């Protein structure tokens, strides 16, 4: 019965609290910014950066993450750790955006180091996960 629940009770609590805190902070910030006339015919007008869609995306992907990860086979928790480690190397996108454009060399240097670090993670993370998973065999090997 318990296994069939999409989210456990604690997740409900944590999410609610987090949403509450983050939400109030964001609102405080967007209200301090010049409030645009959010008429229905103008969408993106809630302050300087329209960050609300990003907050929605964050909320929804957290829900998905909690739902998906809770269903990962217990057998595979060690590879899961290295796989999510590899996925967190998505910071590589940020590194390229900083290292790539025509910006002062110091900035580029920082970006380059970040790029190096992320690529290291990508390569080692995916490869070691695959190496571990290759070992999981279903049938009696001959």
């Amino acid at each position, binding site marked *: 019965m318990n296994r069939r629940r999409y989210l456990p009770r*604690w997740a409900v609590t944590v999410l609610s609290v987090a949403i509450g805190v983050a939400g109030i902070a964001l609102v405080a910030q967007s209200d301090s910014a010049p409030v645009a006339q959010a008429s229905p015919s103008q969408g993106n007008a809630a302050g300087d950066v329209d960050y609300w*869609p*990003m907050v929605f*995306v*964050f909320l929804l992907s957290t829900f998905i*993450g909690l739902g*998906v*990860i809770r*269903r*990962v*086979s*217990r*057998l595979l*928790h*060690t*590879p*899961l*750790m*290295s*796989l*999510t*480690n590899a*996925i*967190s*190397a*998505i*910071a*590589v*996108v*940020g*590194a*390229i955006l*900083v*290292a*790539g*454009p*025509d910006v*002062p060399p110091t900035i*580029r240097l920082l*970006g380059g*180091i*970040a*790029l*190096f670090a*992320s690529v*290291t*993670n*990508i*390569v*080692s*993370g995916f*490869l*070691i*996960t695959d190496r*571990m998973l290759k*070992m*999981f*065999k*279903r049938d*009696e090997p001959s």
Partner: protein
Amino acid sequence: MSAGWVELFYLVATALFIFSLHWMNDPKTARRGVGAGALAMLLGVAATWAQPFVVNHGWMVLAVVAGIAVGYPLSRVALTAAPQRTALSHAFGGLAAALVGTAKYYLWLGEGPEELTTFRMVAIIAEVILGCITFTGSLFAAGKLQALKWVPQRAVTYPLQNVFNIALLLVAVAIGTWLALNPAAPAAALLFPVVIVIALMFGILLIIPIGGADMPTVIAILNSYAGLAAVAMGFVLENNLLITAGALDGSSGLILSIIMCKAMNRSYLNVLFGAFGSVPQTAPEGAEQGEYKADSPQSAAQIMEQATNVVIIPGYGMAVAQAQHRVRELYDHLKKRGITVHFAIHPVAGRMPGHMNVLLAEADVPYTDLVEMDDVNRDMPQCDVALVIGANDVVNPAAKEDESSPIYGMPIIEASKARTVFAIKRSKNPGFAGIDNALYFDEKTWMLFGDAKHVVGELIKELSGESAIH
């Protein structure tokens, strides 16, 4: 590549990341999950790189080549070193996040301070603080796990430690808040590095009071922090792919740390807010001890031969002794005699979640014979012999019976329900939780003292010797 295509690539990458984790729910599809994840990463990189304003190709290729050169050897480490590799990798992730955040701040400060809105500044500060904590914290954790000389293995505690740590964090947050409100003030460019330094220090201070054996939980939490840093980076760069992938990571770390806490019966808040827990004390030397009954591998092998149903319960000791290949041989020998053999896998046996599964998979044990705790406990009364190999806490009946025990309430594998129990360990020392194990004093338990690899080898010798005579 035009903006539309970039966003499309990001969208597909997002879906692939979700499928990647989704496919991990079954060993049959798990490798496809890795493929999906790698493809998603490739799409993300390609789409970002192919944008017209990305021009420093030479410099970036250099960084990528260096990354591959360092990353490849890191993926070939022994699996026993997997935890420290993950920790090291988190450190790199934290570093990347911190650097990108810092770079963006100074870039915007130089180019157009009006870009530094409060929202962006909050995101940058969050990214940098989380990144720095992850960086030094993970490095330190990796050092502890690798048992480096200059890293203290045991928990280091001192008076007012928590008060000091929290005060430090509050200072960083206070400066950060001021920066967020005055991003372009003359002092800001100087205060920013202060925040970085404090966060770097805090990462170390956070890990110092935690014992080496508690590191897996810490690693999961750091995973979560690394994910959140990526989310913050996504807010800074207004990039939904970063937000999604980061949130997936964040939840993964959160859930894994909670699973570990539950299985270890530790408080969950304790972990969520930095695992400031004190490490369980080792048992007092003078505690009254019962009688151990030691046995020889010879007679143990004879009893096992007569069994029809054997359950092997591996624990941290099997990992330490690197006995998994020998255990696999033992399993083969028993199976050859028509004996039903299963492995009972406790979720926190060993030192990382799923540790036993990877070790046994490495030794080619089919995963269909690895049985989860709940299922195995149901069948335990039908079991003739339970062979405990280097496990201790995960079979400690105190967790069920002794309300005063620190592990009371932790779910265990109920080895004591089997008809006969053999336990392999080197000495009378307790395990991770530092408490005695009543199972070993039980009248149906026989101890096989010695290194796991050695003792299992003896058992095999006995079994194969016998089979030669037949």
